[in-house]
């Protein structure tokens, strides 16, 4: 693991890695056994932000991060969820054109992939799912939509995701689900937490 450490103000370290898989592995290891004083661990596409509070100091936290030996392989304890999707998204035809697949093949790849939540961001409960590989990789829409409905299922880059609530958004929409991915009354409130595995099924 080639980790580059960047100090981020007085109380955070940004750990930069070469691959998303390394981010996932480091996040897992840190979340399972956080160094003393660490109050927040935010994984993203190529980085893990580690926030701490006094009396922890940069040097202590940095050496703890560099001492982490991430376990290889798939997360042993990860939850798996099934999300039924109606594949009638407004951008399904565009996704087919961009990927060179038919619409039915897009659905087949999306449902045939075991996705994993790499990280969350953009909005509470918005999980960035990986696992589809290059077959479904598409750019974001040229123009962001002002209003994407709750439950919209989309693609952008190497990721798939489900909009937790109505919001603006620029992802290519391929379908919709009734499954609530964000519920503040639930504990935890996010269905799609880092490490959770997701299988989409087609509902007609």
């Amino acid at each position, binding site marked *: 693991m080639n980790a580059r450490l*960047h*100090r*981020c*103000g*007085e*109380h*955070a370290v*940004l750990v930069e890695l070469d691959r998303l898989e390394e981010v996932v592995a480091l*996040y897992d290891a840190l*979340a399972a056994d956080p160094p003393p004083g660490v*109050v*927040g*661990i*935010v*994984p*993203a*596409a*190529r*980085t*893990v*932000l580690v*926030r701490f509070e006094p009396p922890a100091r940069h040097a202590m936290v940095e050496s703890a991060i560099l001492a982490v030996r991430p376990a290889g392989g798939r997360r042993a304890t990860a939850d798996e969820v099934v999300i039924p999707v109606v594949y009638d998204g407004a951008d399904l035809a565009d996704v087919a054109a961009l990927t060179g697949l038919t619409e039915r093949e897009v659905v087949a790849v999306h449902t045939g992939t075991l996705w994993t939540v790499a*990280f*969350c*961001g*953009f*909005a*509470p*409960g*918005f*999980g960035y799912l990986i696992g589809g590989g290059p077959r479904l990789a598409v750019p974001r829409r040229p123009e962001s939509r002002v209003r994407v409905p709750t439950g919209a299922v989309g693609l952008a880059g190497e990721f798939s995701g489900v909009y937790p*609530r109505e919001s603006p958004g620029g992802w290519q929409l391929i379908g919709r689900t009734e499954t609530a991915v964000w519920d*503040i009354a639930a504990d*935890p*409130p*996010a269905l799609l*937490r*880092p490490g959770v595995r997701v299988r989409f099924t087609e509902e007609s």
Partner: protein
Amino acid sequence: MNESRRALVVLAPGPLTTVQDLGRRRHGHLGVGRSGAADRGALRLANRLLANPEDAACLEVTLGGLRARATGDLLVALTGAPCPAIVTDAEGRPRGIGHASVERLPDGATLRLGVPPRGLRTYLAVRGGIDVPEVLGSRATDLLSGLGPERPAPGSVLPVGPAPADFPVADLAPVPQPESGVLTLAVIPGPRHDWFTPEALTALCAEPYEVTAHSDRVGMRLRGPRLERAREGELPSEGMVPGALQVPPSGQPTLFLADHPVTGGYPVIAVLRDADVDRAAQARPGQRVRFRLTAGVRVAGG
């Protein structure tokens, strides 16, 4: 009066009033930001004056304008931006009350806050704390993600919690006022200063930036010297902290405050020292801020 029925009844919220505490910790990995008071030191002080726990929920009042009536006898304290504060009792007799001091708001009395002559955000704490329901362990309103209590509106009843066992130990706290001139803020370079030309850090600290009207609890958009990038390309989104100076393609930095996004896709050239995030949160649109590199940090190439 049954203590459990004590409340603040909002008559007018002013331009922007929200309920805030010290925010949500440990939910960043779910895409949930910390939020909480923009000037955390001011909220802590208001609570300490009343012997509340430091993280009790208060009202964050932006540019004054709040009018609220007490149900039951309340003890209150105002901190942050000092503003004219008038208490009118149930018989209609007005009196001014002090700043950063322990004041009584008798049953039926109305508190009216004027516009602060300097500073931006005033904190109104009540002994016992504002007792609205918690969301994910906090009563903070996150205006970016929409989490937390609704913004108080005319007629909102904000319940007040039971008074803590401890008594206030001081009548007032002598604290410096928010500065009205050019605000000097200490920054620490990074985490992405290497995405900029060596001159960019020098430019950041050379001339003051103006706080624009496009500023809110999410962040302050600044206008001033343009910060030039040394490398092109997209930065994959990465975790952000309060006080981060994020630089979009315009070269004009945005200073992130309490409701900042959990992750962002533009490089951060420098981060404010923690104590200066509170001071920055009191800067008003039109005010100027000057950045100063933290002692002991060398400017690359300078």
